[in-house]
């Protein structure tokens, strides 16, 4: 038997906001619904939203769900979460928010929370007149033909939930859960996403530290400075010069400029400034570069 939280069981036995929303035909009020899933898949959700047009805000949310215990509980949770939100805020709701509201879901049931997030997106896009297909199809190749799951849907859950295995992807969006012939494709996609993440991570690491304004230790500062200098060196080497970190005193970076560059006063000044700009951008905004001979 699945290990459901009390909250899941409570919302299954006593769901909130079930049913449809009648269009009141009032001015300034719009009613829209979004739907995902099908009876063939074993779960489907129709999410109804009542929207205050002027404020771009969700006044009421109701659901109709065909599915298991956690599908019904996730739908109910979703309606509770989004009531009162602006549409922009609602679009920021992720499947993880739904799962967290429920105190967690068994991993094999995470796809129920994904269904909620997708129905919400479908409803809002429909209201805004955006075709979901258009929004998704920059590279929306179909990966799992059994459940009709595109690369983009898999990408989204992998990134948002930090998934690392095919089994997890299957639990979240069902992809790979049918004939399982797309297992290798999912594995490749996970590897690609991980590579992309790793690349971005190295590139952005320094910026993140700066942005969060976290005090860096001296060791961290030095290694970040070294990294920046490593990036600059090829340019200098091409001109027959070089740069080396000599010392760090507080926020003063002492570098020794060598070779062709070091012998030329004006170029030294230009160079010092160029390095300073990069270091300030990627390590700390208040760094000062000093050339030592």
């Amino acid at each position, binding site marked *: 038997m*699945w290990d459901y939280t009390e909250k899941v069981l409570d919302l299954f036995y006593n769901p909130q906001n079930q049913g449809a929303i009648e269009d009141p035909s009032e001015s300034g009020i719009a009613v829209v619904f979004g739907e995902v899933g099908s009876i063939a898949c*074993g779960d489907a959700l129709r999410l109804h939203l009542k929207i205050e047009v002027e404020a771009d805000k969700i006044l009421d949310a109701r659901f*109709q*769900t*065909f599915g298991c*215990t956690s599908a019904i509980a996730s739908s109910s949770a979703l309606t509770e979460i989004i009531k009162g939100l602006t549409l922009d805020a609602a679009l920021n709701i992720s499947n993880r928010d739904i799962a967290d509201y429920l105190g967690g879901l068994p991993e094999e049931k995470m796809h129920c929370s994904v269904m909620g997030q997708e129905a919400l997106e479908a409803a809002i896009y429909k209201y805004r007149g955006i075709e979901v297909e258009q929004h998704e199809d920059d590279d929306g190749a179909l990966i799992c033909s059994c459940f009709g799951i595109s690369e983009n849907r898999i990408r989204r859950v992998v990134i948002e939930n930090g998934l690392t295995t095919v089994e997890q992807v*299957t639990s979240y969006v069902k992809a790979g859960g049918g004939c399982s012939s797309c297992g290798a494709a999912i594995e490749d996609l996970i590897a690609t996403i991980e590579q992309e993440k790793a690349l971005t991570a190295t590139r952005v690491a320094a910026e993140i530290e700066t942005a969060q304004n976290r005090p860096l230790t001296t060791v961290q500062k030095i290694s970040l400075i070294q990294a920046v200098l490593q990036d600059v060196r090829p340019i200098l080497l091409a001109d027959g010069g070089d740069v080396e970190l000599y010392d760090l005193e507080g926020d003063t970076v002492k570098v020794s400029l060598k070779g062709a560059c070091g012998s030329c006063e004006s170029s030294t000044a230009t160079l010092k400034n160029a390095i300073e700009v990069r270091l300030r951008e990627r390590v700390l905004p208040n760094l000062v570069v000093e050339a030592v001979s």
Partner: protein
Amino acid sequence: MSAVIYLDNNATTQVDPEVVEAILPYLTQYYGNPSSMHSFGGQVGKALKQARVQVAALLGAEESEIIFTSCGTEGNNTAIRAAIAAQPDRKHLITTQVEHACVLNLFKQLEKQGYTVTYLSVDQRGQLDLLELEAAITGSTALVSTMYANNETGTVFPIEQIGAVAKEYGATFHVDAVQVAGKLPLDMKTSTIDLMTISGHKLHAPKGVGALFVRRGFRFRPLLIGGHQERGRRAGTENVAGIIGLGKAAELAQLHLADLPQEKKLRDRLEKGLLVIPNTEINGDRKSRLPNTTNIGFKYIEGEAILLSLDRYGICASSGSACTSGSLEPSHVLRAMGLPYTTLHGSIRFSLSRYTTEAEVDCVLEVMPGIVQRLRDLSPFNNDQAGWLQDREEAVVVAR
């Protein structure tokens, strides 16, 4: 939660109190090894012999034709591998699409080892077509392996007719009778079956014990190699307590065969009452079915949600829906029957036992309409706007 109403007896059964009583001394006092050369162990050996007589009696077999195993899975694996070893020149095997995983997955592995396997299809009632068998079988078919009755629908296959075809081509005939022992009378003396598997916990014995019938004269090869236990046909120190329990359970099952009409009457009462609920259908062959099993599709709702709702009343049943299996596909049995998705996901199996009472059945009949209504009220399918979903269902069916 109120007292448990256990209607999941095809999954496992309550150990009969008389069985427990028979077992206990072998967990406490009589702990000797039946192979030992002293009377303390020897008395245990005698008890095993008695259990073998009891099991043989239930199957209408001779005691030398009974090998004790650890479970149905072991019995099926042993039988299938033994059949292949018996006729090594034959590389074709026949089974059905609706077998238990321990048979299907073994056959899939054998395919990788170079065997050709025919998986016989079933019709909407879950029934086999003998013509399909006759078309598939050849002189190089080593084995025909089918279940006696299906665990999910209760559909009973025409075993002796299948066996007659197998014999005609000299193929070994193995039958997985795990769901049948104790539910239908069996008589191996007049049967075409060569090998037949049973499992203890499906007939009120404990889990962890089973038996394999091997017809005398069959060229048997053991799966487990080791000591001389089971006359060299299943090595390993015997699960004495389990085997004593299986023996006692077999004896009781024999006695209770007389109660089966009563059990069937309760099943029919349950079924009739549930079919009053609109948009319900029986999955299975009403003309040839186990007396204790009913599988009903409740359209437009999902099985796991039904089970959790029943659980609140202490009612235990099971479902072929995708969400109960841990996989994402609904039951392979119901899919092989070609049932529509509307029925597939909302299928519930109730399986009764000799302990089931009329009051329990009536309790299910009392709560079920409300459960179904509540879930249908929640579902987007049970209203006229649901056209988009129906369309999509058809699209998916065509795509497959």
